[in-house]
């Protein structure tokens, strides 16, 4: 990796800005599948209209501008630019070099095709080689084993188990905090380099 290698271009996807004209319709559609929202976190899942989504995008860009500790990206098909998902690194504490990652691929049909992996590789490089973070956290529910396996594959370690912190469908689940350190990521990149 060098200065010339794009931070945003993967093999299948690219990280891009929000398209305020086209994206609201697409992401609004995703939110009507509450199962998708439940995978993203603990806040109450509810569908979002295109008009509400437009407002959300404006709020996101305002927050990014004012807070200086949030980075927000859309995940798009590398070639034709179709919207696939989003990624967000927030809660950045610059003095400690810490941040929190959330990402999602919206349409179930787009999952399991390598888009998420491609995006996460880029996001880790961005977090550790550009933002110079020391560590990155991910919070997810025990009821999302696919994401747990996904992040573990990239070296994330389970660090905290907040017992019964999630309440859904009349039962409770643990909330898991995962963490990946910059050193661990660097070692992994070196190994990958040696193998290829």
């Amino acid at each position, binding site marked *: 990796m060098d200065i010339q290698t794009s931070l945003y271009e993967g093999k299948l996807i690219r990280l891009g800005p929000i398209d305020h004209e086209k994206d609201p319709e697409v992401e609004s559609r995703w939110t009507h599948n509450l199962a998708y929202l439940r995978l993203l976190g*603990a*806040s*109450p899942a509810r569908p979002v209209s295109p008009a509400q989504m437009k407002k959300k995008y404006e709020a996101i860009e305002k927050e990014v501008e004012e807070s200086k500790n949030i980075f927000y990206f859309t995940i798009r098909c590398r070639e034709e630019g179709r919207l696939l998902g989003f990624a967000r690194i927030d809660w950045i*504490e610059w*003095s*400690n*070099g*810490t941040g929190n990652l959330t990402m999602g691929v919206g349409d179930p049909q787009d999952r399991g095709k390598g888009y998420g992996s491609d995006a996460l590789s880029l996001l880790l490089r961005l977090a550790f080689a550009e933002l110079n973070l*020391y*560590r990155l*956290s991910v919070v997810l529910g025990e009821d999302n084993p696919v994401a747990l396996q996904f992040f573990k594959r990239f070296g994330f*370690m*389970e*660090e*905290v*188990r*907040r*017992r*019964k*912190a*999630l*309440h859904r469908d009349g039962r*409770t689940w643990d909330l898991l*905090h995962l*963490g990946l*350190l910059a050193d661990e990521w660097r070692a992994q990149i070196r190994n990958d380099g040696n193998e290829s």
Partner: protein
Amino acid sequence: MNHELLQGKYVRLTAENPEVNASAEARWWQDSEYFRLLDSESPHLWSEKKLKEWFEKGLEKEDPHSFGFSIRTVEGDKVIGFVALFALSWKDGDTLAAIAIGEREYWGKGFGTEAMNLLLGYTFRELNLRRVGLIVFEYNLRAIRSYEKVGFIHEGRIRGAMLREGKRWDWLMMGLLREEWEARQKEVV
């Protein structure tokens, strides 16, 4: 059972006017150790005026996802710190708790432990939440001991989440479930 939820033997939990909170916190924040036990961000020394404006903003509308109280001593009726619930999720019955004692002469004497016990009673008996979590820095041994004493269980550590004085420190996360807290109440009685 004691039904005066906010009244303890040594302290009680109160709601104070903005000027009381602002003058106390402006003073406490000038104690760098106080801030470093409480917060992982870089500290600012805010003026009393600025702090008062923030507390006044709180008067305009109630935030359903946080509860804050001042800690007043029974003897001397002095404001010595605060407790708070934040990031409260009603649907999950989960919240995070925070506590700080700003007046140093009250450190290590059980005032904080009693204040936390009052906050827990309020959380489980009035708000009917199902669990309380908290974050504590690994160098804050006094606080860790106090939390263990009121029943919090260690749930894990966020590795190296803080860099201070050239060293990496973990954040410890602890949690207490309603049923664990209830079992302890029976033991005490």
